[in-house]
């Protein structure tokens, strides 16, 4: 609750700053505000309680994931200065909307009622529709936003329909009530209810970008301004997967069996298709889109396993994934700035011109590929452990095969940077940005080396 309120205040503050023409204050205020919000959230750690008779439930899970979300947002905002370097137009609106999107995301992690879930999703989505199109002049940006909007609203219709059906069969939106109902109708569920359940799953699957509801992701990612792509790839994905998992844990605990198979298949297909499609992408941004799809597949492993460990595994995974992805996008921003595109060829010989940046991207890629001792490896390992504990051997083997394939495309930028001849255009990077990149790199390495802090807290 405090998180949401503080963030909303922050958002409004940002808009006011815009009115007061204090563009230069924006980022400092936002960053401090985000840190404050994080601090407030952490303070809620030991106060597990529900607000507005169960509309919002703040528990460890929600707190932890809210922190992850805000932290990712923080990392993304610290890329903003470089990204909008040349831009003259006021940015308060974009930043403001981003923060409101973040509010939506936080709501999705702490909802206790389907209404709140819906509102959270919509807050997030509507904000994102705006953000995706925020680069008005670029046709690609427009296309991206239209695609995202059409598909998004279309699928949220199904989500709503699902909610309606669940309401119809259970008579309540409250997760607790629903779980009671589930418990009551021991094993035999009315068709309407099941239909609602699956439509709800589908609605969330769309947001997480699970095959076959992933189609928006590559196109929208490519068209959207890079900074906001990073936002989509991390914050949105994290929020949605958490929402889905929360939904299962709080409500459908008893009927794991009903949806397990479906999710199993979806996860497998997502991992395979995401990785396979990623192999042949010519540019980094689109490759990252597919990588994010495949990673949502991996995250589904935790959902399928559905064990006490899952929460923690998810937390670990989302965090390490978000950091690495944001790093990648950070470099991507630089490359785009210098070359106007982000084809792998424009990274040739970066190791010679910009050794530091090259190293950062390498670490990010290796972490995403899950190579020890980086964060990505520990995350994957944690996830696989969770899955194998439940005996999902074949799913894990598919995931393994997937990550073997994924090496093929994660290494393309590395090969380009280290093994090809430089094309002579060095990236222009400011010192704070460098520091930020190094900070994230260290984070990735440290999480890999000392994961103790993140393991077993949930």
């Amino acid at each position, binding site marked *: 609750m405090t998180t949401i309120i503080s963030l909303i205040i922050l958002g409004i503050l940002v808009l006011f700053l815009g009115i007061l023409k204090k563009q230069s204050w924006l980022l400092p205020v936002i960053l401090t505000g985000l840190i404050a919000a994080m601090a407030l959230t952490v303070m809620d750690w030991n106060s597990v309680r529900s607000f507005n008779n169960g509309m919002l439930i703040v528990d460890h899970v929600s707190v932890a994931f809210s922190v992850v979300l805000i932290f990712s947002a923080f990392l993304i905002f610290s890329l903003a200065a470089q990204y909008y370097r040349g831009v003259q137009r006021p940015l308060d609106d974009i930043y403001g909307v981003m923060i409101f999107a973040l509010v939506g995301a936080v709501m999705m992690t702490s909802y206790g009622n389907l209404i709140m879930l819906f509102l959270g999703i919509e807050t997030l989505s509507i904000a994102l529709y705006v953000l995706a199109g925020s680069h008005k002049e670029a046709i690609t940006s427009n296309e991206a936003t239209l695609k995202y909007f059409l598909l998004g609203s279309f699928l949220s219709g199904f989500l709503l329909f699902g909610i309606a059906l669940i309401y119809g069969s259970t008579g309540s939106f409250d997760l607790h009530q629903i779980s009671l109902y589930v418990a009551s109708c021991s094993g035999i569920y009315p068709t309407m209810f099941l239909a609602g359940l699956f439509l709800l799953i589908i609605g969330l699957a769309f947001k997480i970008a699970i095959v076959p509801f992933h189609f928006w992701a590559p196109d929208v990612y490519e068209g959207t301004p890079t900074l906001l792509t990073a936002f989509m790839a991390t914050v949105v994905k994290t929020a949605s997967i958490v929402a889905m998992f929360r939904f299962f844990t709080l409500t459908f605990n008893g009927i794991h069996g009903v949806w397990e198979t479906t999710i199993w298949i979806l996860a497998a297909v997502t991992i395979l298709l995401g990785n396979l499609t990623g192999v042949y992408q010519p540019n980094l941004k689109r490759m990252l889109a597919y990588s994010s799809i495949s990673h949502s597949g991996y995250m589904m492993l935790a959902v399928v396993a559905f064990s006490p460990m899952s929460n923690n595994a998810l937390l670990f995974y989302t965090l390490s994934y978000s950091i690495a992805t944001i790093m990648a996008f950070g470099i991507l921003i630089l490359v785009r700035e210098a070359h106007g595109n982000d084809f792998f060829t424009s990274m040739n010989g970066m190791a010679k011109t910009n050794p530091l940046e090259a190293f950062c991207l390498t670490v990010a890629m*290796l972490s995403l590929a899950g*190579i*020890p*001792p980086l964060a990505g*490896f520990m995350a994957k*390992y*944690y996830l*696989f*452990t969770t899955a*194998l*504990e439940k005996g999902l*051997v074949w799913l*894990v*083997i598919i995931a*393994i095969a997937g*990550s*073997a394939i994924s*090496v*093929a495309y994660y*290494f393309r930028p590395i*090969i380009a940077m*280290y*093994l090809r001849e430089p094309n002579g255009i060095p990236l222009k990077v400011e010192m704070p940005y460098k520091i930020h990149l190094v900070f994230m790199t260290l984070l990735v390495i440290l999480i890999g080396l000392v*994961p*103790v802090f993140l*393991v*077993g807290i949930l």
Partner: protein
Amino acid sequence: MLTQILILLPLALSLITLLLKKERTIRYFVLAGTLVEFGIAVAAFIQYKTMCHCQLQVTAGWISSLGISLKFGMDGIGLLLVLLTTFLLPIIVLSSFSHSYNRPAAFYSLVLFMEMALVGVFTAFDGMMFYIFWEMALLPAYFISAVWGGKDRIRITFKFFIYTFTGSLFMLVALIYLYFRTPLPHAFDFQSLYAVTLTPAEQSWIFLAFFVAFAIKIPIFPFHTWQPDTYAQTPASGTMLLAGIMLKMGLFGMIRWMIPICPHAVQQWGPAAMTLAVTGVVYGSLIAIMQKDMKRLVAYSSIAHVGLIAAGVFALTIHAMQGAVIQMISHGINIVGLFIVIDLIEKRTKTRNIADLGGIALKAPRLAVFFMIMLLGSIALPLTNGFIGEFLLLLGIFERYMAFSAIAGLTIILSAVYMLRMYQRTMLGTTNEITEQVTDLTWTEMAPLIPLVIMVFWIGLFPGLFLDTTLPDVLTIMSYIR
């Protein structure tokens, strides 16, 4: 105590190296560092010998909730391999002085990082640690061969990376699976992994997973195709690291992890694996005969040699196992020596093509002598290190599978065929315009070869020291079989 130092020192060195600028300083710094490391290893050896097999174990919790602990130590086998690693590193560094690599800081720091990973692999007492270091060893290997490699390096090295990486992922699954079968509280350390009791079916799966991972790394026929290309493309020092030390990881993994964890499966699948290994022996030797590139020739010969070692491991007899261990050491020494010689030849003549060479012995008798000694070692002439290993291996295999031993014994003949062919075509005969201006070795060039030669004859004459070191551990490993 010594164990941590052994692991951490190279890491620290590699980080420091990154800060150094001048190539000269870097070289001597790295050389000194590796020598110190070797000294520590020797100290550990002495301590081990004197303090009756104390295993020098160190443990620290890491992720206790996931049962991973920083558990390191050295039994005889691991200790010998650590000794090999730390002994070869200074030699490899020394031999690399004759080249000047661009960005030396990066190069040497990668080399040191690799040393750290290798020592970690050989000292890991915790399954997950073993895996982590196993993978960490792969990265520097990849970058060394990819960045400083030959023309076709991008494709080849990428194949090498993805092939070996994929293989080891299976091992990861196997390890995690085993983790859940360990008695509560679950743990990865080797005692609890050894203690796992598995159904035959499970054992077979685990065995296969491990086998694929190790077989690709070793490499055992038919998983070997990455190897010759990679050796040909990799810079000399990289090749030495790969051939001399890295492929021992696989054999070590088989002895240390695979056999005790799934003994029945090893016995059940032993003949099959043996068939592959022995096939590799003959296959590699035969192909080596007609190779044109010296490095490729040695690469194929190495496939044959490690095939024999693997066969020895699967023979599951004490002699074969002992032979395997001693032969790992010998093979490391011999092949590094051969690669150094080849590197020196290439440096002088700018070619590795056997057909272009000849008569070098006239111009560089010292080089010829060193070449001959390394050659004799690798064709297992008695009183050289190679003989001890191959004698024990073949004897051990013979005790269990006579036919396999006879077939594998063909290496005695074939190795002579291809090695002498290479020697004759390069060293003997009359000089041509390429070999006309070949000069003899300088002292700095001989420096790395001399210790190798000493080891060749030391192990050949007095293998007792090494055999006694590993015997108890081999016996414990064997005790899991029955």
